[in-house]
């Protein structure tokens, strides 16, 4: 594979980029400067034309999202940057914030200019204290350096930007759960419509974009939509993409690659299977993504190819499982996560995630019944599509794929009255 020139992670490993001066020296804030000379609509059109799709999970066109914000009006408008990276397996936004905070600030500022927002909140998960501190420092510098405040880069554009720390709740990564949390409430997702573009933060039109999505924006402005579109699988899957690879690979980490790289190549980049194990399954897009198996090894890792295969790119958090891994145990852990993180307001998610965890736990610990697989599928059916927000669907993803793709393992757990897989001791001191 030809070496790919990193775009979003170009400053990783260059600590000087943490300072405003250092960032500027590498061409930083050039995108913002150019953007301020452009009409808002031009920027939105460029982002639309680039094909940039949301990197948080849903994969919705960023430019389209921006274009939903009503023009004019007497209400303020807001940008909320979703830095609540909590999808299990995902750690790419943390990298971007800890290593290149100004890139994010620049992306946010361009977005605000394009949609007419004068305030941006970067909602960062409470656990990311280091990233929050780095961002705070960068924001301070940006204010002092005339990037933010009453006159952005000497223009008439006024912009305030704040870091807002969450307090530990996965559901706040859901757009409207985040807005509720930002407003000081329990992070319970809202009924939609109305969508945030019309009624968002504090009742005003609001754009919500993921960190990685916004980090792409300065590059689209400086290098053009065509350049962006030249990267990737096809017209609908464009641009550079961060893949966060973890689990049973030799070199777990964040890899920036053209979107749509086949999983096989990604696995190679990450050093192949850990300790020479054999691939059994992988989760291509975070805990919510239905599990794929070794037979899917050549799938391009983009939005549409993965959707076609019955899974999703999600946050592109790739968790790799080798063939000694118990799928029941793994999915039971994810079910526990979704039960823990269900906000509790809607019936199917509150009760369904709880029931699924109980069932899978029972199965893993040897009390499974023959009818459990069918029951799990039935619960999945009653949760999927019926919950208030997408968490219900997310919780169903791994469970449904477990029953459908690994029926033998479930049967074996029932038959053997327990888990047939040995516990491995990988938490050891080097010999």
């Amino acid at each position, binding site marked *: 594979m030809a070496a790919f020139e990193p775009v979003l992670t170009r400053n990783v490993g260059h600590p000087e980029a943490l300072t405003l001066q250092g960032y500027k020296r590498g061409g930083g804030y050039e995108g913002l400067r150019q953007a301020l000379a452009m009409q808002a609509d031009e920027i939105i059109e460029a982002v639309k034309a680039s094909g940039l799709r949301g990197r948080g999970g849903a994969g919705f066109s960023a430019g389209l999202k921006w274009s939903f914000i009503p023009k004019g009006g007497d209400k303020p408008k807001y940008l909320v940057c979703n830095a609540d990276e909590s999808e*299990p397996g*995902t750690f790419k936004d943390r990298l971007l914030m800890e290593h290149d905070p100004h890139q994010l600030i620049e992306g946010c500022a361009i977005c605000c200019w394009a949609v007419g927002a004068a305030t941006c909140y970067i909602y960062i998960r409470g656990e990311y204290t280091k990233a929050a501190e780095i961002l705070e420092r960068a924001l301070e510098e940006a204010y002092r350096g005339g990037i933010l405040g009453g006159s952005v880069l000497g223009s008439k554009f006024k912009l305030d930007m704040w870091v807002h720390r*969450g*307090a530990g709740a996965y559901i706040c990564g859901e757009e409207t759960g985040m807005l509720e949390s930002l407003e000081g409430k329990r992070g319970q997702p809202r009924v939609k419509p109305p969508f945030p573009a019309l009624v968002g933060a504090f009742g005003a039109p609001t754009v919500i974009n993921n960190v990685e999505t916004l980090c792409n924006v300065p590059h689209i402005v400086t290098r053009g939509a065509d350049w962006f579109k030249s990267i990737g699988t096809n017209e609908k899957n464009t641009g550079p993409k961060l893949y966060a690879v973890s689990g049973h690979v030799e070199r777990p980490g964040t890899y920036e690659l053209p979107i749509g790289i086949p999983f096989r190549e990604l696995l190679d980049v990450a050093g192949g299977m850990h300790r020479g194990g054999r691939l059994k399954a992988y989760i291509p897009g975070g805990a919510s993504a239905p599990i794929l198996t070794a037979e899917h090894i050549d799938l391009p890792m983009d939005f549409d190819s993965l959707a076609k295969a019955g899974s999703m790119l999600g946050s592109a958090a790739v*968790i790799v499982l080798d063939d000694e891994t118990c799928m029941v145990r793994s999915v039971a852990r994810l079910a526990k996560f979704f039960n823990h993180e269900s*906000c509790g307001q809607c019936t199917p998610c509150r009760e369904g995630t709880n029931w699924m965890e109980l069932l899978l736990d029972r199965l893993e610990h040897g009390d499974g019944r023959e009818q459990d697989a069918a029951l799990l599928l039935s619960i999945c059916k009653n949760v999927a599509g019926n919950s208030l927000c997408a968490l219900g669907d997310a919780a169903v993803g791994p469970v449904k794929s477990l029953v459908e793709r690994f029926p033998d393992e479930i049967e074996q757990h029932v038959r053997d009255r327990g888990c047939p897989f040995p516990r491995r*001791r990988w938490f050891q001191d080097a010999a």
Partner: protein
Amino acid sequence: MSEPQARPAPPRLSAAARAELDAIRRRFPTTEAALIPALHIAQREWGGWLPEEAIEAVAVELELPAATVYGVVSFYDLFHQRPVGRHRIRVCTNLSCQLRGADEVLELLRQELGVGEDEVTPDGRCSYVHFECLGSCDTAPMMMVDDQYHENLTPLRVRRIVKDLA
């Protein structure tokens, strides 16, 4: 929660905390939006957790019903309703870490500290809990001690980290 009972006027946040909060309040068009920052501040002031009096102090400060504030406190994993140790350890046990031995990290902490999850060591030094994904899956297994991430853990490292906690 215990039975209702009459109590003296609730304590207030310290002057420094109030000043810090006032600066944050200006960022939002509503008072309520300052609630989560206020609770972070209050939790710091009350030694890492939020007793009833801390919740009431915040409720008074932001003019919100105490039940509403408690509803928010109990929603978020980073707000504690019970006393914690001077140092708080959170062990990620979600899938990527589980695949790399997170459960054994927990077990080792139990042995080293001699207390169960969410309990405080007798000397008040430490408490630990298992936690959902902390976004450090590439360095699994990992844990967070106070605000610091400790990654690529080995038994030796865990023992040393615990020993070094003051």
